[in-house]
Each structure stands twice: as structure tokens, then as C-alpha cells.
């Protein structure tokens, strides 16, 4: 960023900076206002935002000391920031919205009850996540088991083998898988009941992808029935269930802004 020397009045509008007084009012009524340096405009905004690195900020401040145009521009940024900081944190609606909200909450509870015969359990998605975690833990143990040779080709991996320990592990896996699949059905029923509240595009994408994953897991299971001692197939099945779990969690509220949305710190407390 360089300083430019002063120039005659005719060119002054095109000559940034030119030094002079703090507020650039050295320009008389007959002279156009000085403009900021073209290469400084973005940095001035960043300086006011506090996002410039210290070295660059120091260089900009040094430049401001001798550039009226840039000082004026900085003052405009500061003025806007101050006005934003002075905005009220909230705005009261013209009327009380609670009665309409309450009516919708009542209607929603009634519709849910009528549609499914029972109120949906709270924390359905958390319930699903917990069931999925149990299933995946059991399945991971099963998939990396060193007891593959015990199972034998014609035996289904889901059947109880002669080895009590392996049988117990397989039974645990089977129970966990059943719980996972049952919970998945419950989650899908919940999604269907709340379809009107969900973003249709997200819903379409999730359900389309879920269908693909379900076909894949079905094929893997069928392959496992034919080749129960295949550890790769087991791992693939576990991975497929994990992907389905992750996909259905898409309907949890986003984490957008959770840790950073504090509002302008200079605007004071919540009214």
C-alpha cells in the first residue's frame, strides 16, 4: 500500500489519499471528496472487523495516519458497525403468537396419536442411535472374531454353533441386529409421520440413498448365508449398517452456529 502525493484539484477525485486532515474535510465545497486507495478498501473492512493479522493491521494503521480518503472510509465502516451494535437484540411481534402455536402443538399431538395409535416416544433418534451402537459393537466383535474356522461352510453365521462361546457371540449379534432393524423401522415410521415438517429435498435424498444401502446389505447377508466364514462380508455388512445409521441421523437438527452464534458482543444483554 503506498501513499500518493497530493495533486491539483481537478484530479483530486481520482487521487486516493493525498494526506490531509483526519476527516478529509480539507476538500472545499468545490472539490470532490477524496476516495480511499483502491487496494486498501478490503483491508480497511478487515481492520474494522478485527480479522487482519497484526503485521498487516499495523501497516494499515500507519497508512491511515497520512491518507484522508482511507480514514474517511474507515470511519464509514466503524459507523456501520456501531449502528449494527446498537440494533435491538430482538423485535417484539405486533401480536401474541402463542395461541396459534399452542393450537398447532395440540393439533400435532392429536394427529400423531391418531396416525400411529400411540404418541411417539421422545428421543426416538437418540433411541435409534443407542440401538445402532449396541448392534455395531456386537457386530464388530463378530466380524473380527478369530473363530471363523468354527463355523463351517454350510452353517449360517446367524445360527448357534456347537461352540458355546461362539454361539453366545452370534446370539448376541443376532439380538443386536434384530434390535437395530426394529428400531430402524420405528425411526422410518417416525419420519413418515413427520414428513410434512421435513425438508422434502433432504427427505428424498435420504430415502433414495437408504434404499440403495438396504439393497446392498441384503445382498451381503445373502452372500454370508452362502459363505458364512468370510470375514470381509461380515465387515461389509457392519459398514452398511453403520452408513444407514449415519444417514438416518441426518434429520437431527444441524449444528450450524451452535458454538459461535453469540450476537454482537457490544450490543449488551438480552432485553
Amino acid at each position, binding site marked *: 500500500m503506498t501513499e500518493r502525493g497530493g495533486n491539483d484539484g481537478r484530479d483530486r477525485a481520482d487521487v486516493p489519499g493525498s494526506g490531509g486532515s483526519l476527516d478529509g474535510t480539507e476538500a472545499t465545497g468545490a472539490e470532490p471528496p477524496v476516495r480511499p486507495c483502491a487496494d486498501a478498501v478490503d483491508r480497511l473492512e478487515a481492520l474494522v472487523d478485527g480479522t487482519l493479522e497484526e503485521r498487516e493491521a499495523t501497516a494499515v494503521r500507519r497508512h491511515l495516519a497520512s491518507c484522508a480518503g482511507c480514514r474517511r472510509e474507515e470511519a464509514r465502516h466503524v459507523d456501520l458497525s456501531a449502528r449494527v451494535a446498537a440494533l*435491538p437484540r430482538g423485535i417484539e411481534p405486533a*401480536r401474541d403468537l402463542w*395461541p396459534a402455536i399452542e393450537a398447532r402443538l395440540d393439533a400435532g399431538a392429536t394427529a400423531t396419536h391418531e396416525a400411529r395409535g400411540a404418541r411417539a416416544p421422545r428421543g426416538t433418534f437418540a433411541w435409534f442411535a443407542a440401538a445402532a451402537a449396541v448392534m455395531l459393537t456386537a457386530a464388530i466383535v463378530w466380524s473380527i472374531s478369530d473363530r471363523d474356522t468354527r463355523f463351517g461352510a454350510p452353517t449360517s453365521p446367524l445360527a448357534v454353533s456347537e461352540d458355546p462361546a461362539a454361539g453366545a457371540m452370534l446370539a448376541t449379534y443376532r439380538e443386536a441386529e434384530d434390535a437395530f432393524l426394529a428400531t430402524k423401522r420405528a425411526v422410518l415410521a417416525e419420519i413418515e409421520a413427520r414428513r410434512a415438517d421435513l425438508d422434502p429435498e433432504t427427505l428424498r435424498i435420504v430415502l433414495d440413498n437408504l434404499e440403495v444401502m438396504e439393497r446392498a446389505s441384503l445382498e451381503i447377508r445373502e452372500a454370508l448365508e452362502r459363505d458364512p466364514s468370510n470375514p470381509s462380508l461380515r465387515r461389509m455388512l457392519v459398514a452398511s449398517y453403520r452408513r444407514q445409521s449415519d444417514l438416518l441421523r441426518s434429520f437431527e*437438527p444441524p449444528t450450524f*452456529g451452535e*458454538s459461535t*452464534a*453469540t450476537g454482537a458482543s457490544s450490543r449488551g444483554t438480552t432485553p
Partner: protein
Amino acid sequence: MTAATGTVSQLVDPPAVDESLLIRRAREGDARAFEGLYRRLVSRVYGLCLRLTADPSVAEEMTQETFVRVWQKLHLFRGDRPFAPWLLTVATNVVLSDRRKRRRTVDREDPIEDAPPPAVRPTSVAAGAGVDLERAIRTLPDGARTVFVLHDVEGFRHEDIAGALGVSVGTTKSQLHRARRMLREVLDA
């Protein structure tokens, strides 16, 4: 559920009741506790919705929708974090989702014959008048106004705004710069 009409009763929102207690009770299905949360935070939600939509009637609709969704999703709120940012997150997504739906509706219609009337919005500013910032914000185009409100007014990060809008951080920074420039021009007029 029965509403406490008129003034809020002490049982609904006594000053001494901790917000976390209201949240806990609301999560357990206590509608009066949820009303208490509504009373405390409706101005934040409505203010955000109004600034994003520039339309009071749409903002009212979005505010209602936000609280209905929050009631449905309250069990998903992680109680170890501040509630207001999460609430405003839901409100932002409600507004953006609605905006996408409205655009899809417009796209399906004939753009010349069936386009909905434009939102009522001041289209010009009297030169020399003391235009306040709220009115100036409403004159901004949708994209610039959204980024300005979320970043400068509400304090969200560019990364989060870009993610919510499905655009790059470069785009949100560019929109913010544009919004600030336009606001300065309006305010300086």
C-alpha cells in the same frame, strides 16, 4: 393444554425460574414451561425472522413454525450448550427452507403470468432522510440481506452460513461486502 392469556402468570415465567429448568420441564412435555421459553425468546426469533424475510406476516409465520419445530425436537437439544443459539439455528433453517419452497413454487409457474406479487418492501429511500438501519436492511437483496443479518447482526461464522446456504465461504464474504457497501450508500444518502 391451556394458554395463559393476557399477562404471563408467575407460574409460567417467574423471573427467578432458571431457563435450564424451563427447558428441562418442557422436554418432559410441560407446555407451560415451553410457553415460558416462548415468552423469553420470541423477540429474538421474530427479530431474526423479520430481518431475514423483510416481511412481518411471513416473519410471524416463520416464528410460529420455529417454536412448533423446537417443541418437536426439544429432546434432541444438547442441554450442555446455550439454548438461544440452537433456537436461532432452527429459526434460520425454517426461513431458508421456506424460501427454497417458495422459489420452487415460483419456478413451476409461468414466470410472467403467474408470478406472485413481490414482497412489500421499500424500493427507494428519500434522499437526505434519516433512514434507520432496520429499514435499510430490508432494502437489501435476499442473498446479501441473509448473510448480513446472520453474520453482522447475529454473529454466525462464514463457514456456518456457507454451509446452511449451500455456497462457498468466498460467496458469503462477497455477499457481506456487497451488503455493507449497499447499506453505507443508503445510510449516507
